[in-house]
């Protein structure tokens, strides 16, 4: 029997190595796999490259992971935002590398990684400093920049409902980057508010088919509807 549900955070985090690229779902606090990030802090892997929309806020979660010196590089669209104090400190001190990527390009680069596409062209960022050094090609009279796929070793995902095959659904705008990062990593780990019996999830509403998910851990932290 296939059973991707693990009981403990230690099992969920097993095998994440130093030097990994970790893709993290969420947009702001919504859909962020906050408990898995805590688990990663506990687990101890370092020298990490983090791919996420934001560079963390406050001093918990992703900010804490950075503050502990475990993040070598962050790839994101929105490094500086209200409360991104840890990132600012580390960046000013030259202790963290930064790659700024337009938000849509960030999503598409991960989608490409999951879909077997090593590179694609986009009009986004053409003529700006975020396209500096990248190949530019003209198609039908317009210029486009070539962007490369962005694969991860690990992806951390927050789901709403999950089953033992790893099928996932999300909750409203908590979907955001989660289904995208889930496709792009070798080891996708989901925390889920609810665990359902196999067959309970309507096959029409599964957003992330289980093929993309290696481990699921049941971490309910507050369903306002239940």
């Amino acid at each position, binding site marked *: 029997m296939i059973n991707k549900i693990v009981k403990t955070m230690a099992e969920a985090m097993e095998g994440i190595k130093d030097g990994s690229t970790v893709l993290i779902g969420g947009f*702001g606090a919504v859909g962020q796999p906050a408990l898995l990030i805590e688990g990663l802090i506990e687990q101890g892997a370092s020298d990490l490259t983090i791919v996420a929309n934001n560079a963390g806020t406050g001093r918990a979660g992703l900010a804490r992971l950075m503050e502990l010196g475990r993040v070598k590089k962050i790839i994101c669209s929105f490094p500086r935002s209200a409360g991104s104090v840890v990132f600012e400190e580390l960046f000013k001190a030259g202790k963290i590398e930064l790659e700024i990527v337009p938000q849509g390009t960030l999503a598409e680069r991960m989608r490409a990684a999951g879909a077997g596409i090593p590179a694609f062209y*986009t009009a986004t960022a053409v003529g700006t400093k975020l396209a500096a050094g990248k190949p530019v090609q003209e198609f039908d009279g317009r210029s486009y920049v070539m962007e490369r796929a962005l694969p991860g070793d690990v992806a951390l995902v927050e789901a709403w409902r999950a089953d033992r095959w790893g099928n996932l659904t999300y909750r409203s705008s908590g979907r955001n980057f989660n289904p995208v990062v889930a496709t792009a990593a070798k080891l996708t780990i989901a925390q889920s508010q609810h665990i359902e019996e196999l067959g309970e999830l309507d096959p029409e509403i599964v957003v992330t088919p289980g093929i993309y998910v290696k481990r699921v851990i049941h971490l309910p932290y507050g369903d306002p509807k239940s």
Partner: protein
Amino acid sequence: MTEKDWQPLSRGQMAARVARDIPEGWYVNLGIGIPTLIADQVSGDREVIFQSENGILGMGRAPNPQHVDPWLINAGKQHVTLQPGGAYFHHADSFAIIRGGHLDLCVLGAFEVAENGDIANWATSEADSAPAVGGAMDLAAGVRRLWVVMEHVTKEGKPRLVKRCSYPLTALKAVHRIYTNLAVIDVAVEGFRVKETVPGLSLESLQNMTEATLIDDRAN
């Protein structure tokens, strides 16, 4: 400058002015700042469908404080609601909508717009090495129409409508129209065409607050 016999628009008035020009049925993305105020200014008898980068079509107004859904936010991370007929999708699908040219309109704030339509709205200096770009470049390059809403000049009185942007660019030749607190200006092949000015403001006075040359295209 002599005593003003004209009044600049307030932020709310600027938002209302933009809202007037959005017809029923358009799919629209609103940036943070003044653009966000536009949604509430679109009159209720006109159906306009708002998109948010974080995977929403049919975004509605701010929720009643008693009925906040913690999972439902907009791209500015404010709590919102969903209208009947709305839908959720993931970030890659959301930016496929943006980058695929499916939105009729995006309204963004900006630091500067150049007379060729270049826009600078994400970084205040070349030396700033960690500015937040978010979805601005995707929106500016991807949508069918890009309108900018901003103060006509900076707090220091420097023009924002320029010959050439001095700040790092967001996109090239992207802006179609600019709504300032003083005027409505189309960005045409031949440059800035002034369509409308606040009552009492002369083109000459407006030109004095504008770096690039203005073309008078007002109705009367």
